[in-house]
């Protein structure tokens, strides 16, 4: 298996000497190509900080993050932007679509800023839209479509550049359960048929149950790791709930 992401001994400290907060305290893990990894944890556990470090929005205090063969903690300036633009795809809780652009243009923007030929853009956008079943809304503006559709447009924008890694931060956070299910099916489709590698942060057990592997983080450390293996999604979901009970956080999510 090709290793896409290698996180080794990273630490992230906030504050000063007298009042030091260890947001990430020595975390190491690997993600292989084609994996769908979930990261769970209560608020304040450090999961978003971890994602920010991987996406280079934030810098680690120590340790290394290797994507492909490159240590991204050593990247600077334009190379950093290039890395973010070309190797990563982002999905955010609040969609982050530009309201002035149509859905088509929102997806195309990810390509235009990579200076992709305008002829290729059209075929690529249409292709991905078909896969995610959003062909009908391409000419609409974000305010004209539902939340689920918006998030699928965002997903299309993230995947269209063929990134090595897709980072999703609470992608279902702003969706109702039906839209959330639809979106997660799309994730699964991309993961299985296009062999996309996904790293998803969530605190929702249902959302997490779509992943193949889940890392639980508590107080900046990896607390547990469970694999879906051959179990069904329902069984995996129950496993997740068990770990969450053990973790003692987020009781509200245990229904």
């Amino acid at each position, binding site marked *: 298996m090709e290793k896409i992401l290698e996180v080794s001994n990273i630490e992230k400290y906030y504050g000063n000497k007298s009042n030091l907060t260890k947001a990430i305290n020595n975390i190491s893990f690997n993600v292989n190509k084609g994996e769908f990894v979930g990261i769970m944890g209560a608020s304040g556990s450090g999961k978003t900080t971890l994602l920010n470090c991987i996406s280079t929005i934030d810098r680690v205090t120590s340790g290394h993050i290797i994507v492909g063969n490159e240590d991204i903690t050593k990247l600077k300036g*334009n190379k950093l*932007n*290039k890395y*973010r*633009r*070309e190797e*990563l795809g*982002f999905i*955010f809780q609040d969609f*982050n*679509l*530009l*309201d*002035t*652009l149509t859905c088509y*243009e929102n997806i*195309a*923007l*990810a*390509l*235009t*800023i990579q*200076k992709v*030929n*305008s*002829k290729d*853009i*059209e075929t690529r956008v249409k292709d991905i839209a078909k896969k995610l079943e959003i062909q009908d809304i391409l000419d609409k*503006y974000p*305010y004209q479509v539902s939340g689920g559709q918006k998030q699928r447009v965002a997903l299309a*924008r993230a995947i269209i550049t063929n990134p090595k890694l897709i980072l999703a931060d609470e992608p279902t956070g702003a969706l109702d359960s039906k839209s959330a299910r639809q979106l997660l099916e799309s994730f699964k489709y991309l993961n299985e048929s296009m062999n996309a590698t996904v790293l998803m942060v969530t605190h929702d057990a249902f959302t997490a149950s779509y992943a193949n592997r889940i890392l639980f983080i508590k107080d900046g450390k990896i607390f547990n790791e469970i694999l879906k293996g051959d179990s069904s999604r329902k069984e995996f979901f129950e496993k997740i709930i068990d770990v969450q009970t053990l973790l003692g956080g987020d009781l509200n999510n245990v229904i």
Partner: protein
Amino acid sequence: MLFKLSLKNMKKSIKDFAIYFLTLVLGVAIFYMFNSLDSQQAMLEVSQSTRQIIKLMLGMLGFVSVFVAIVLGLLIVYANNFLINRRKKEFGIYMTLGMGKRQISKVILLETLLVGIMSLAVGLVIGIFASQFMSILVAKLFEADMSKFHFVFSKEACIKTCIYFAVMYLAVMIFNTMTISRYKLINLLNATKKNEKVKMKNPFLAVFVFLFGSTILGYAYWKVTADVHSINTAEKMLPPIIMGIIGTILTFWSLSGFIITLIQKMKNIYFKGTNMFVLRQINNKINTTVVSMSVICIMLFMTISILSSSLALRNTMQRDLIEMTPVDLNLYKTANLPESYMSYGKEIRPTEQQIEDSRHPIKDTLINNNLDMNVLKDVVEIEVYATNDLTWETFFGNKFDEIKKEFPGLDYGTAEEIVKISDYNKMAKLYGINEYQLNEDEYIILCDFDSQKELRNRVLIQGDYPLTIAEKVYKSKYNECKDGYITMSTSHTNTGIILVPDNCPLTEEMKEMYLLSANYNATTDEGKEEIEKIFVDNADSSNLIKSLNDNGIVIDGLTKISIMEASVGLTTIAVFIAIYLGIVFLIASSAILSLKQLTDSSDNKQRYTILRKIGCDEKMINKALFRQIGIFFGAPLLLAIIHSVFGIKFALSLLSGLAKADELLPSIIVTVIIIGGIYGTYFLATYFESKNIIKE
């Protein structure tokens, strides 16, 4: 405590204050500069009669200053409103902490006061230094001696500036307090959360409206240039102006929709880098800024036209002036006074002495009235004839009806002036202008006033145009008017003189006027000014004037010195007021555009954050921002420049004979420097401030 808070606020948001501060400082500086004109050194150096004109100018500037103060006042209120809106959330937090509206008002009051005092101080310092430079400009305009340079400070202007701006700040304070008292806490805290629906225009409608708007503009342009002769009354100027305004608004309303429809078709431009984002951004914003863009465009148009045509006008007048005043003195006297005549509905009966005198040349009158003829040299005297049998109407002959229909306002009963060729050549030789030769049966028309020349040429072009003068038929030697004049003037305003052969049977009764030209017999300027006093009727009149007055003899005259001073003064007033207003308009429109952009930048911060998140680097984002602001500043300027090309042409044709197109270049360069300086400063300030806003 509140003072500390205000001070800290200002330090913290110094960048937000930049545009506001810039506007205030520029306003104060300009205000001081133009109000301190009277004590500027150049003004102290100019001669006595020019001083009169400066007084007139100061009166007018004072009047204009009130208008300027109102414009600046409104601008300051607007700019301040922008600041308050930017800080809604901050006020909301104060209120949740239990601070009353009154206390918040006090904080803002203190801030306004601090900014006001600072900008007043900085503006005055800049104004005082800039006015030294303006002195040099003034000196050039008034041709004053600037060899000794002093640093000048005008206390009156300083106090006036302080008072005017204090009143403006007071208005701002009252306005602020009113705004604050209307705020509700919930709105303040949620001020940044805004859900905007994107309203897109129908692309076909946009294209149609754009074409319609351009057509209206095109028609208005055609009307004021190619079809300009149809505009002969002030009311007829109104339709092109209204069409211009409507065309401008329609153009801006549809411009972005039109361009986006066009560029969307060109996929390799549209889908390139951040082009798509920039275009959509503009399209989105222009909807809300149609009116302000149009106002800015029209203001810029006015600035450009006023600045360049007034400077050009002045240059042309100056050049004409030197050309048109070849001698020191022109005197003229009515010949052949009748026993009685009507003047302004009153019967006038000249005395016998007056009638007798009117039969003699001016030279005799001067000698009879105790003038030592040695003060004059190069004396030439000629006679000018006129008859009611030969008026403009008779001259236009077969074309009269056509011309009258086109220009109903002209006085066609005016009698033509007739001069014998040898007389004219004597005068022309003295003036150093073209002399002419005539055959027995020929005449020449001299005319250098452009619009009149054009009318006369319409008749003369027919060739050998016959004219009956003193019952004898003559034909025109040339198929057009020739240049020339017999009296000095401020510019080319000779509407027509007919030159006839010496043997033309002009009768004694037809003699209308004596005209005498001469130079002062002095070598220095001082000497000439001494002689000038003999001929000018003022408080301490010379013996000549007293004697003439005693005898009731009227001799009119023009002197080179008086023409120079009057004309330089008047054009200078016009130029000064034009520059003053032009710059104020420019500041106002630049500031409004800046603030509008900054408001948009802070509203659209989220969009730039998204760009950053999907991997745009800072360079791309800054480029997108630069282009976006550039287009917003550029579009009104571009349309204003197009407007101005036609506007200036129109202004030139209205002032036909006064200004020439080729005189425009230097004044256009000056205009470009002024506009580039002020508009450019605002553009850059807006760009850098926006960059900061989207980085937050």
